[in-house]
């Protein structure tokens, strides 16, 4: 990655700089991996994405990845991160879009890069960021009725026990009951393993400093 041709020079860098100033975006400081990055306002992101794909000197025609970062102490809390690759010019670009917690929504770029479809569903599933204009914004990895967004930093690392209390009773458990033991609006309850497992496992005293 280090010798990736991201070196400044030429019309390509100028085209990017022109676009950045036109849309009020910012250049990000140099990253350790040497990939150029820009920080974009979410209102202008969709139009900027089109330009990045279509301008002759840029031609970022491949969307490599969409992910997000949760910064609990920052404003805005979420950063949606896109990695773009121009196959024509062999250049990489990182785009970050800030998304506040109160209105966790970001324009969908599915119409620009079709491959964004499942990536954006994953970001929605894991971080709860909604993508406006997405044709089919459903969870992709977790069950449809799963109540949390587990890669948010306030979600407990060891997970939440969603099952109803059920252990060798010979009773019948309906599948829909798997996720309804939590009243709506209540905060997720972390599994308290300090007194052994709540369902009766005992794998010894859990170390106190685990969390």
């Amino acid at each position, binding site marked *: 990655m280090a010798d990736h041709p991201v070196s400044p020079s030429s019309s390509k860098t100028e085209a990017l700089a022109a676009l950045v100033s036109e849309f009020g975006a910012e250049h990000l400081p140099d990253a350790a991996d040497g990939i150029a990055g820009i920080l974009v306002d979410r209102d202008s992101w969709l139009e900027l994405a089109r330009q990045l794909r279509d301008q002759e000197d840029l031609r970022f025609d491949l969307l490599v990845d969409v992910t997000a970062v949760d910064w609990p102490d920052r404003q805005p809390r979420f950063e949606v991160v896109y990695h773009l690759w121009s196959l024509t010019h062999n250049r990489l670009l990182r785009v970050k879009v800030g998304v506040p917690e109160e209105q966790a929504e970001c324009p969908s770029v599915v119409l620009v890069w079709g491959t964004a479809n499942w990536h954006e569903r994953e970001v929605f599933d894991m971080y709860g960021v909604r993508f406006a204009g997405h044709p089919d914004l459903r969870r992709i990895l*977790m069950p449809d009725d799963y109540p949390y967004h*587990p890669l948010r930093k306030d979600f407990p690392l*060891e997970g939440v026990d969603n099952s109803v209390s059920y252990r*060798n*009773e010979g009773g019948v*458990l309906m599948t829909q009951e798997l996720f309804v033991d939590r009243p709506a609006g209540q905060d997720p309850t972390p599994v308290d393993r300090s007194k052994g497992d709540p369902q009766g496992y005992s794998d010894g005293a859990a170390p106190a400093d685990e969390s």
Partner: protein
Amino acid sequence: MGLEDKFPEILTSRLTDLVAWGRKNSLWPMPLGLSCCAIEMMATVGPKFDLSRFGAEVFRFSPRQADVMIVAGTLTWKMASVARRIYDQMPDPKWVIAMGVCASSGGLYRNYSVVPGVDRIMPVDVYTVGCPPRPDTLIRAVMELQSKIEEMGLDGRSPREPIVLQN
């Protein structure tokens, strides 16, 4: 036992014992191979370990024809309702072997996506250790289950106390 004296070619038995003997020697497993443990489960029915010596080699991929479910692998929350439905489709009497630490307790995956033990969604009869358990451990689980079935009544339900295999 006057009957046996009069007809020496006849064996008498209690019906409960006869049914239990038949059940325990013709287990038809439903292989719920969810991840890496399934490879060892396949090896167990192969010629080297040969689970058919214990009458449990007829793996059925339809739950309606099976009576023991071998949960071999990591059960995720997304798969949980499916696994439970497969269990519900098996006819009674039915039993469950939790193969490996993932199926028994979630194993090393203590996180948002993995069910911490399949007994969260279905009753388990035998828990096995190992990541993955060797085929001998699975064979032993089957044998423990057989001895448990032997003690069961005609309804095939009691006793339900799970067996935990130790190393």
